[in-house]
């Protein structure tokens, strides 16, 4: 128990960082699901593409000698903007090609198309990365690597000190900014209201002279661009990326969205943080808590168990509203 307590501050911080990534990715799932009732399997891959675009941009800045020429925050901002713009467009393109023709098809069909897009993106990125660098595991430059230590041990002797790199603060900060911005956008602006109207009832919204196609495209653009931006942050945080990072991460983010109540933006944020913290906590402490029977490798089992349990017993999630099926 002593051991669990002593690492707790560090576990919470690590969980917070991972959770912030999950939360922002979960937003993309939740927005698309809210409006189309489609699990956009490809969203994890859009996140991955964002990470690759960001890394590629940084690498080309580096070779062009631009990285030293401008302040760090500016180059990070530019990279995030480039990446989110491109992934946003990618999202819109995917919607146009693979989902829009299927809007009236049985529910199974768009899901299959989504899995297809997801595979396609993984392999295209692998292909490009391998052609360019000879290896699809790519390591990019990290911008904020200063180590920060918070002396938790002075707070209470049982705690260990907490160490993390400066970039962690940026991840959390940007994630919070994105969430607040999105919340405001959806709740306060005209487009946001249109979005919610389409989510609630597509036909009626259309009758109210809302351009449904435009709204859906916009949803995909926003969801994908914040996914892409998160990808850049992720690449900064972990510095090494490969084309397959998106799939499992996407699943966990989806779990987060479900946990918080799918279609609910605040729920997704909450769910992401919970899943991130639980995961790091399980990896750090499962061994101790189970007396050595279960190791850290069971942490994914826990993530999936949570998903299954939530879907079984509270499918509307913690913050969602139960929907009665229409006959």
């Amino acid at each position, binding site marked *: 128990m002593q051991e669990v307590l002593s690492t707790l501050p560090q576990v919470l911080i690590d969980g917070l960082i991972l959770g912030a990534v999950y939360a922002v990715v979960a937003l993309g799932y939740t927005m698309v699901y809210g409006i189309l009732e489609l699990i956009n399997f490809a969203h994890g891959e859009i996140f991955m593409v964002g990470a690759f675009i960001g890394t590629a941009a940084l690498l080309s800045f580096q070779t062009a000698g631009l990285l030293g020429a401008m302040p760090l925050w500016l180059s990070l901002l530019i990279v995030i903007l480039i990446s989110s713009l491109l992934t946003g467009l990618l999202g819109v393109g995917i919607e146009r090609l693979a989902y829009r023709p299927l809007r009236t098809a049985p529910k199974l069909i768009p899901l*299959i198309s989504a*899995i297809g897009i997801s595979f396609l993106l993984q392999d295209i990125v692998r*292909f490009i990365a391998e052609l360019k660098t000879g290896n699809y595991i790519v390591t990019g430059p990290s911008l904020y690597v200063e180590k920060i230590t918070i002396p938790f041990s002075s707070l209470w002797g049982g705690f260990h000190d907490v160490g993390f790199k400066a970039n962690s603060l940026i991840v959390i900060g940007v994630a919070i900014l994105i969430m607040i911005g999105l919340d405001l956008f959806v709740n306060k602006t005209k487009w946001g209201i249109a979005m919610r109207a389409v989510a609630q009832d597509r036909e009626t919204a259309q009758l109210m002279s809302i351009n449904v196609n435009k709204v859906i495209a916009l949803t995909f653009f926003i969801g994908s661009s914040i996914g892409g931006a998160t990808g850049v942050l992720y690449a900064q945080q972990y510095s090494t990326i490969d084309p397959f990072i998106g799939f499992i991460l996407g699943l966990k983010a989806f779990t987060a969205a*479900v946990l918080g109540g799918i279609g609910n933006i605040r729920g997704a944020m909450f769910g992401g943080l919970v899943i991130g913290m639980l995961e790091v906590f399980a990896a750090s402490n499962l061994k101790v808590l189970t007396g050595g029977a279960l190791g850290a490798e*069971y942490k994914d089992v826990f993530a999936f168990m949570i998903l299954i349990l939530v879907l*079984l017993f509270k499918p509307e999630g913690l913050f969602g509203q139960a929907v009665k099926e229409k006959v």
Partner: protein
Amino acid sequence: MDKLKSYSSNKMFQIGILALLVITSGAGVYFMEKSVTSFLLLLASLLLLYYTSFSDRVKWLIALGLLVVVIPLATSGSPSQQAYMEVAVQTGIYIAMALGLNIVVGFAGLLDLGFVAFFAIGAYTYAIFASPHAQNLFSSDTFPLSGEWFWLFILIGGFFAAVFGVLLGIPVLRVKGDYLAIVTLGFGEIIRIVFNNLDKPVNITNGAMGLSSIQPAELFGYQFTYSHQIYFIVLAILGLVIFGVRRVEHSRLGRSWKAVREDEIAAQAMGIPLVRTKLWAFAIGASFSGLMGVVFAAKQQFVDPTSFTLLESITILVMVILGGMGSVPGVILGASIITILNLQILTELTGWLNTMFAVPDALSPAKMQKMLFGIVLVLIAVYRPQGLIPAKNRSVDPAKLKEPEDAAQAGRPTSA
């Protein structure tokens, strides 16, 4: 064109073409050291057979003759016999699994993304008891079981998988559609992770190291170790599976599945027990996968968790979707295309490209598997959601139903 049409509907003409194809490609396989093309054409003769206008019984008989006599005979002359037969065996295994998944996805409309878990359960069921590792586990001299037990384990493996299918099915019945897909995906991953870690606290699966030296199947002292021997086991099981699927499809249960797929609420209103119907779909589908798992373990003589990844589940799903959800011949075709593509065509193409040009490794077709799957899934979803051979429902002519005497004269209802 009309002339051609009349030709092509002529039975003699069809027999001629078929025989010509079988003979030339069979001879190609037999006499040449290695000709993937002629082997593929030999297999394609089965597809051609499907499109002929013979009666079902004749088709089955010819197919049986091709599979049992012609193909083993043709390949036996070639030094590449084992390679051809390996492809045939793996194709057979995947066809059975795809048929199992077809019951769940195609007939009952329940999207299952963790289907390979049942395959793993079947494989491990046999592997645990028939590998030397069993001695540590049970500390008894009767283990490992000899290959004679294989035949019983086919049933046990299928049964275990069915039990797990039901165990998964019970909770899952509460969720629908997309959620079901995600839950089954989670379930598949859990099974794999558990198998990968079940070497502690009690070593059951030997974890990531896998179980090796599994006993091959054995009948009266005759060991089935080569692919051309295992081929017949797979063929026999596949025959049973196809027979079973066709029987079940048109049974009361099969029609209930389709009713549930089309509209759950309406089906329930018509008195179909929703829970039981869905559970049967899970159980039967899983059992096909489980019994092929046993065959797989006996064939590879080695089982480890890397054979049961999510990609594998999705590969099986691609087979079903490509062929046509709910269509038995379609699924068989889909499974054959994908397996042969994976095992032979992409590999051959890579080898060929490498000898012709200096292709950068990133470009090699063998690596493009995922991209191809992706393209297939999207194209099928957008342009041909019913698959290559769409499912057909037996249709009944209402006029004939009204006049029972006429129907009796016409024999059974015509299938269109």
